[in-house]
């Protein structure tokens, strides 16, 4: 890792071809490994193992590449710059821009409070700020990679598209409700010291180093979840009977979408843990809209984040925020169950 950080560009030139070769021969390696065990083809255990041995390295490889590229892209965006882009924007246009910036601006829910205050301070409208706070955690590179790797690009695109629509619409609705008085009073009393952080423009080598840093950070953090998630997914894949989920999360069960959201909101997991499980459920007869709604409510709305936001928002606004987003997710779920 030290060598890579010292020679970021040279390392990329060496690592990239290796990555391509590994990705290309992954299926053959997995099949060879399964053949080595001598397990008979078509058995539950064999198929569950094959799924695990192939999917785990595939998803990890994809994740390394995407996190690296996104890590570089993120160096071109900072919360400070995003804030100045959003200051004084009108409601609708601001919501669209804010959701897009929410996807690319570096964000950690641990910094949700200082970010919120920074936005409000700079005159970013409340509804526009919410679009950012909804899009940033919901649409992230880990979710996109897992959706792409396990479901295919169509579902990944669908998730990003509907996630953005929810962030834009929910932020717009919250903006229209005129709920500024439900922000904690101390927030408006802060008068920030204008000697802000001076921005140093990083060199391309610096940006590449940020890319490697992001890989170390993010992949280092989520790999156990991926192992666990795909492990549970393989179990379901190999052992759960076909159509087992049809009665519970199927299209014909009208209450399945709100029930999925109701269960999903307090549940907290990152995308890496939940998506492989949800993928297996879809295979066993769960409907796409219900699945999508469950996923979005788990990833996008979380109890820890609302507890953090409670420091700056009065309880009424927390409830409004969670309900508006939940209603948006439920609507998306129903639309997809109808269309597919």
């Amino acid at each position, binding site marked *: 890792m030290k060598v890579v950080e010292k020679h970021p560009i040279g390392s990329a030139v060496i690592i990239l071809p290796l990555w391509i070769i590994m990705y290309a021969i992954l299926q053959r390696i997995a099949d060879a490994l399964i053949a080595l065990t001598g397990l008979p083809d078509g058995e539950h255990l064999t198929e569950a193992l094959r799924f695990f041995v192939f999917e785990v390295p595939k998803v990890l490889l994809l994740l390394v590449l995407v996190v690296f590229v996104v890590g570089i892209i993120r160096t071109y965006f900072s*919360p400070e710059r995003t804030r100045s882009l959003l200051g004084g924007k009108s409601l609708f246009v601001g919501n669209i821009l804010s959701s897009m910036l929410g996807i690319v601006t570096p964000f950690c829910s641990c910094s949700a*409070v200082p970010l919120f205050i920074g936005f409000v301070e700079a005159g970013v409208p409340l509804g526009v700020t919410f679009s950012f706070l909804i899009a940033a955690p919901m649409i992230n590179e880990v979710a996109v990679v897992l959706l792409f790797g396990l479901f295919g690009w169509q579902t990944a695109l669908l998730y990003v598209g509907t996630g953005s629509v929810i962030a834009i619409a929910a932020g717009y609705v919250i903006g229209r409700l005129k709920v500024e008085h439900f922000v904690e009073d101390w927030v408006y009393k802060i008068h*920030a010291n204008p*000697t802000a952080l001076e921005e140093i423009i990083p060199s391309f080598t610096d940006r590449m180093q940020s890319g490697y840093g992001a890989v170390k950070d993010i992949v280092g953090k989520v790999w156990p979840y991926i192992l666990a998630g795909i492990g549970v997914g393989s179990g379901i894949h190999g052992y759960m009977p076909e159509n087992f989920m049809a009665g519970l999360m199927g299209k014909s069960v009208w209450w399945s979408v709100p029930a999925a959201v109701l269960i999903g909101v307090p549940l907290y997991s990152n995308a890496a843990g939940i998506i492989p499980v949800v993928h297996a459920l879809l295979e066993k007869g769960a409907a796409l809209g219900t699945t999508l709604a469950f996923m979005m409510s788990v990833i996008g709305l979380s109890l820890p984040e609302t507890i953090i936001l409670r420091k700056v928002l009065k309880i009424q606004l927390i409830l409004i925020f969670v309900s508006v987003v939940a209603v948006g997710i439920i609507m998306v779920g129903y639309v997809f169950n109808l269309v597919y």
Partner: protein
Amino acid sequence: MNCKTLEKRTLEAVRFLGIEATIEKLEAYPEITAYCIMRTPGLVIDEKVVVAGSVPTVDKIKELLLVHQG
């Protein structure tokens, strides 16, 4: 996690350089955000924000301390 690492590294850098410094750890949001910090943890030297949202290495902190020392 990150804030503790930053505190430890800053102490180490100050001790290494042998400069006299009062180190204060601000943990209340009103105080933090008064410095325009939007990403935690942040490092402020003589009322000037020099780091936000990352944990620099001890060497980097030494460099920052030397540059920003009055």
